[in-house]
C-alpha cells in the first residue's frame, strides 16, 4: 500500500479540488448563471444572484470562519487501517489511496484550533470530496480528539458537517463512531463548554444521527440537505414524490431541528455573536 509510505509533506493538503470548480467560469447549480471564479471567491462560493451555496471543503471553510493565520491543524497524520480488508468492486485501501490522490486530503475531516474575532476555538470541518464525507474510524477519532481538546482547553467547539453518513467499508466500526462522538459530546456538555454545529449540504445518515444533531446551537446553510435517510430511500419507502423543500435547511428550521439558517457570508459574525453571548 503505497499511500502509507508516502510522506505527509509531499501531499498538497486541503486543496478542495472536486467541489470547487477549477475553471475560470462556473455555472451556478441553482439558477444556471455563469459566474467568474473571482466573483465566486469574493462571494465565498455562493451565487450573487440566487444565493446558491456551492459545496466547499475544509480549506475554504476554515478561511471563512477563522481569523487570518490562526488555524493550527491537529492530528493530520491519522489514517485508516482498512480493518476489515474490505473489498467490493474495488479494494477499500485502493479507494482510500485514490481519495487521497484526488483530493489532496488525508481523510474526510480536518480538525484544529483557531480564533474567531480573537476568541479561541476548536474547529472541525468535514470534506465531502473525500469518499462522500463518510465517517469511519479516523473521522470518529478526529472528531473525538477535537471534542477532547475543546473540553480540556475549555474553548468552544465548532463542527462543520457535510457527509453522506457512516462509511460502509469499516462495517460496525463505522457505526460505533456515532456512539463514540456522541459519548464524547456528553462529556463536553457536562463540562459546560459550548458546541455549535454547522450543517452544510449534504448532512445525512450517521453524521446527522450523532454529532451534527447534538449542538447547543444548530446552524444550517441555506437549502442544505439535512436528514437521516436519503431522499431516494424515503421515496422508495413511501412510493410517492417528496414535497418540495423536504429535508432542506428551511424545512428543518420549520420542524424545529435547527435554530437558524445562515448565509455563508454571515456565518463568522453569527458564530462570533453566539459565542460572545454564551461566554460573557
Amino acid at each position: 500500500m503505497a499511500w502509507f509510505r508516502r510522506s505527509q509533506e509531499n501531499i498538497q493538503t486541503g486543496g478542495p479540488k472536486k467541489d470547487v470548480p477549477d475553471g475560470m467560469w462556473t455555472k451556478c447549480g441553482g439558477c444556471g448563471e455563469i459566474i467568474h471564479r473571482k466573483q465566486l471567491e469574493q462571494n465565498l462560493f455562493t451565487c450573487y444572484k440566487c444565493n446558491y451555496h456551492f459545496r466547499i471543503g475544509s480549506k475554504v471553510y476554515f478561511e471563512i470562519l477563522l481569523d487570518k493565520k490562526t488555524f493550527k491543524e491537529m492530528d493530520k497524520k491519522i489514517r485508516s487501517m482498512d480493518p476489515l480488508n474490505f473489498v467490493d468492486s474495488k479494494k477499500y485501501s485502493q479507494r482510500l489511496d485514490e481519495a487521497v490522490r484526488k483530493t489532496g486530503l488525508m481523510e474526510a475531516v480536518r480538525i484544529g484550533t483557531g480564533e474567531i474575532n480573537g476568541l479561541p476555538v476548536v474547529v472541525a470541518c468535514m470534506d465531502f470530496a473525500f469518499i462522500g464525507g463518510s465517517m469511519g474510524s479516523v473521522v470518529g477519532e478526529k472528531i473525538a480528539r477535537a471534542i477532547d481538546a475543546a473540553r480540556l482547553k475549555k474553548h468552544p467547539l465548532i463542527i462543520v458537517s457535510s457527509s453522506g453518513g457512516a462509511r460502509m467499508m469499516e462495517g460496525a466500526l463505522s457505526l460505533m463512531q456515532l456512539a463514540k462522538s456522541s459519548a464524547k459530546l456528553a462529556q463536553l456538555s457536562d463540562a459546560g463548554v459550548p458546541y455549535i454545529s454547522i450543517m452544510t449540504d449534504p448532512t445525512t445518515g450517521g453524521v446527522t444521527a450523532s454529532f451534527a444533531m447534538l449542538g447547543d446551537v444548530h446552524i444550517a446553510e441555506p437549502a442544505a440537505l439535512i436528514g437521516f435517510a436519503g431522499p431516494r430511500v424515503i421515496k422508495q419507502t413511501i412510493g410517492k414524490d417528496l414535497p418540495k423543500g423536504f429535508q432542506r435547511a428551511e424545512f428543518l428550521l420549520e420542524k424545529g431541528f435547527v435554530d437558524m439558517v445562515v448565509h455563508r457570508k454571515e456565518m463568522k459574525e453569527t458564530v462570533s455573536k453566539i459565542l460572545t453571548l454564551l461566554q460573557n
Partner: protein
Amino acid sequence: MAKVMLDFEKPILELEQKIEEMRKYADNLDIADEIQTLEKKVDQLRQSVYTDLTRWQRVQLARHPDRPYTLDYIEMMIEDFVELHGDRGHSDDKAIVGGFGRLGKETVLIVGHQKGRDTKSNLYRNFGMPNPEGYRKALRMFHLAVKFNKPIITLLDTPGAYPGLEAEERGQAEAIARNLFEMSHLPVPIIVVIIGEGASGGALGIGVGDRILMFENSWYSVIAPESCSSILWRSWDYKEQAAEALKLTASDLVEQGIVDRIVPEPLGGAHRNAQEVANTLKEILLEELKALKKMKPGALVEKRIKKFADMGAWKE
C-alpha cells in the same frame, strides 16, 4: 405444521420430518433400527451445516420468522413485567417495547425492538422499525430507570430505523443522536444484547451500554447486506459477498473489539429451543449485572465512555 425452511437447512428439516413420520408407525412396524440410523445421519448433517455457517446464513437465521423476539424473552425471563407506553410527546411506537419487571430478584428496566410474526402483527409493529417517538419512548423509560436506580437491559432486533417522511419530519436523526448522547452518561448499569438484527443507527439508538452481548446467530453492522450490495455493487445480487465483506457476525464483532460476550444458541438457531436460550440469557444477565453493580455510578459512566472512545482502528 408448516415449517419455515431456509435454503441451506432444507436437507436437515426434510430428514427430521421423515423421522417424525416414521415414529408414528414405529409401534406397528419394526423400523427402530432404521430410525436410529437416520437420527445419526441427521445429527451429522446438523453438525456439518450449522457449525460452519457462512455470514449470510447467519443473517438468515437472525431473521428467521420463528426466532424469539423481545416480548418472548420478556415472557420467558422476566416476572411481574409491567409494560409502559408512549413518549409523552407524540404517540406510542409499537416497534419499541419496554417496562419494569423482575429478573431473578432484581427489578430491571427492559427495553427492546419488537417485530411481528405475521402480516397483521408486522404492520402493527412496523416490522420492528422505530419512528423517532420509539427512541424518545425508550429515553423516557431510561430516565425512569435512573430516577429509581434500576439497571437497564436493552434487546436489539431491527432491520433499521423507519425511513419514512414523517420520521424525518419528527427528527429521526435527532432522536437517535439524543439517545446515544444520553445513554452514554446514564448513571445506572446498562447491558445491551443483540438478539437478532442489528441494523445500523436504528439498532444503536438503544445500544449504548457497559456490556455488549450478542447472540451467536445475530448480525450487527452499519448497513444491511442487501443495501450494501445495492450501493457498492449497484445490484441487489451481492448480498452474500456484502455480508462477508461487512464482517457482521458475533465472532467478527468480538474480534473488532465491539462485542464483549457471545450468547450461545442451540444448533440450528435460538428458535430450536427458545426456553433454553432464555434461561442461558437470564443466567448471563444476572452474572453481568452482579459485576456491574459493584461499580460506582461515576466510574461506570467514565468506563462506558472510554469503552466507546476506544472503538475504531487507525494509525498515525
